[in-house]
């Protein structure tokens, strides 16, 4: 009952965020997790070979503490068809400091096209870039976005 109430209260929020198309496999329990998640964001890969929708599974990125990211990979921005490929990599780096993270996140597949990168850790404040690399048939293609982490 509580879960249903929460679900109903969250539906308008999804619409406001422009993400009125929850993933087909999304379960009520996972939606509950939205109360502690960041908004969905999108990115297109460099050669426009796939479309990425992602969100933090925490309200804000913590400094020097682990956090998780949920990533969806679609064939295009219509988000009708999950992309199929061999492997997904999620990473982050600070090009101006010429380093990346000190940890390697664990990538877990939830369902076709849906992944969670567990154990991301940004160890210092500043501008970070996130990378989603999709490997298929020996070729990776990258989608990326930036965020600012305050100290």
């Amino acid at each position, binding site marked *: 009952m509580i879960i249903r109430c929460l679900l109903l209260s969250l539906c308008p929020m999804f619409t406001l965020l422009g993400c009125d198309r929850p993933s087909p496999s999304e379960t009520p329990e996972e939606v509950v997790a939205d109360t502690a998640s960041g908004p969905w964001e999108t990115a297109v890969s*460099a*050669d426009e070979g796939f479309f990425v929708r992602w969100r933090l599974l925490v309200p804000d990125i913590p400094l020097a503490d682990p956090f998780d990211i949920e990533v969806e990979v679609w064939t295009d921005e219509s988000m009708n068809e999950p992309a199929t490929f061999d492997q997904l*990599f999620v*990473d982050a*780096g600070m*090009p*101006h400091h*010429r*380093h*990346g993270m000190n940890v390697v996140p664990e990538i877990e597949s939830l369902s076709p096209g849906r992944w969670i990168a567990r154990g991301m850790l940004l160890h210092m404040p500043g*501008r970070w*870039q996130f*990378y989603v*690399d999709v490997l298929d*048939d*020996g*070729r*990776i*293609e*990258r989608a*990326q976005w*930036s965020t600012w982490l305050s100290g």
Partner: protein
Amino acid sequence: MLKTLTSTLLIPVVCLCFSAAARAMVPQERSESADQSPPVPALGEFDREKNGIMFGTRAMLLPGGAGTAVLRTDRSILLIEPLSDEDAPSEREISGTFTAACILPGGMLAAFDDVSQEIRIWNPALEGPALREVSRIRFDRTLDEPLVDVVDMAPFQGGYLLVERGAHRVRALDAEGVERFRFGRKGGDDGAFQFPGAISVDDQDRIYVVDTDNHRIQRFTADGDFDTAWGRRGAFPGLLTSPTGIDVVGDRIYVSEALNHRVSVFDLDGRYLYQWGMHAMIPRQGEGRIHYPASIDVDENAMRAVVAEPFERRIQYFKRFSGGLDEARAAQMPSKQDIRSHFGPFISGEDDLLVMGEPETGSLAVFDVAGETGVNITVFTNHGSGWDDLGRLGALHLDGPEQMVYVSDLVNDRLSCWRLQRERDVTIRYDPFMARLTSAVDLSVTRDKLASLDPDRTWVIPRIVALDRAQVDGAPLLAADAANQVVFALNERLDPISVGVSTREPFEFVVDGPRVVLVERSGEASMFRPLAVDGSDLGEGTELGGILMVSNGIPGGAALLGDDCFLSSMEGDRIEVIEGAAAAFQRRLALSNQTDESDVQNGSEANELASLHPSPERTWGVTGEYDGEFHAPAGLCRIGGDRIVVVDRGNHRAQIFSPDGTWLSTFSLSSGYTTPKPRKEEP
């Protein structure tokens, strides 16, 4: 009672303390007396240097101070003797196609001839104007594949060990040239190599291999089984960066490191002991400062060592420190400082952009060259194995209009593509976020795709050493593959789409508009072969398919501009201009477009152009460090405004010239100027 008890207890305690203090003093006295014992011997004190040794890649001490044998990149061997006579050392030379050499236990000189697949042996002790050859051992290849890319060798149990760098393995031959065993494969795990560079054997016949691009030393048993390994990339004492040479003498292992500019010394289990050498602080500085060492050789008594520095065209001799190991450790020089840019040989430019390789950091530096000099606008990639890292740069191509950079990585077996997010009409500024990796391909998958394109060949993982594309719409990216000895074309997804000409030692492409020329190395000469835009032969089966021209020496780089071909001469410290070379290419291209092939074959013009052996008509530049001067100029390319950029590698900078050789500017990562620096007054 209590007092009695206290004094009874205290006295022994005080006595114990006193005796402990007394004992503590005894070792001190012993220590002082121990200092009078002979110091632990340690090599590394600068003795002397010999300059003018052109491109010696391996220097070896002959027993008894009889001299030094130097293997050179032109595949000859120079014998300098005697070691002690500085004023008039005599020199003898053995010409051939040698790629590896070593000193045998009896003092004989052995060398591997790459073309004849023979090990030839000379006795340097025999006098005469020429060295006397005493025997030859032909590699028995009736049952196996030939030895390829042999870069070092060592005597082993009456036979030989040979390092095949490109094949990432070691082969052991017996005294008759029959293979006994082999070990190694490409990779980073135990027993695998990334371009092994040198080999040595200890008194127990354990085999030590310099695993250059894994930045470590690996030890194997006398049967070739993996034993242990140590080292990882870094500059701190005990770490290794691009080790190039090794010698095991007694209980010490001496390792030369190209990119740390030093020699590191370990015990037989890989425990770090000390180091010597340091990057020069002023150009050409020697006297113990080492620059890109290529080899280390220590005599049988560990009394002397010789280090080859091909880049500096010299060899340096080192002797024992009189104060032994303590003095050696105290004399250690700090790591290199304040040298921000080194500039490797790779350069690619077009219009207002330029990209260059930085081998020390495994990064690529991009410059805006719209103005009079180069301004660094971003640096990207790091040394490493991640998708956006770089193991070792094999080739570089900048697609100017699209602002795309293509990078071949020889260690990670990868070809990657980066986009420079840069607006051309805004003020120039440094932007560390400018370069974005768009895609990268695993070349083992490329190998499989090539095999499906041409199933008749046996394909290995490509080793791409040149990348470029003709400047016409729709022209594919061309890759010169040294491992499969072929040129192939790639589409925008970096998938191979066609297989072009075969090539033995590709070096680079030179492109100007629709004109594509493949530069190949052949011993001391370079061959220039015109290609179609897809990398296929121009006029296959006709005279047109031949060599366009042959140039003496190996250029550091080449570029076509107008009718002329510009070559950088690493040996001569100058730029050579072959006038009319491009025009000859243009005529060749026109002929190849004729529809009637018989006309082409019979045409006198075609025969006239079949092989052009031009000599440079113009040159500019001299050896030096001032503006307009060079030391070992490497990569060369053309940029907008009909200008030529030259990587002046020995001076850690780049220079821009007009086609007539007028100096325009000098720049590095941190500076750029258009007014030549004044010359210092000669004392």
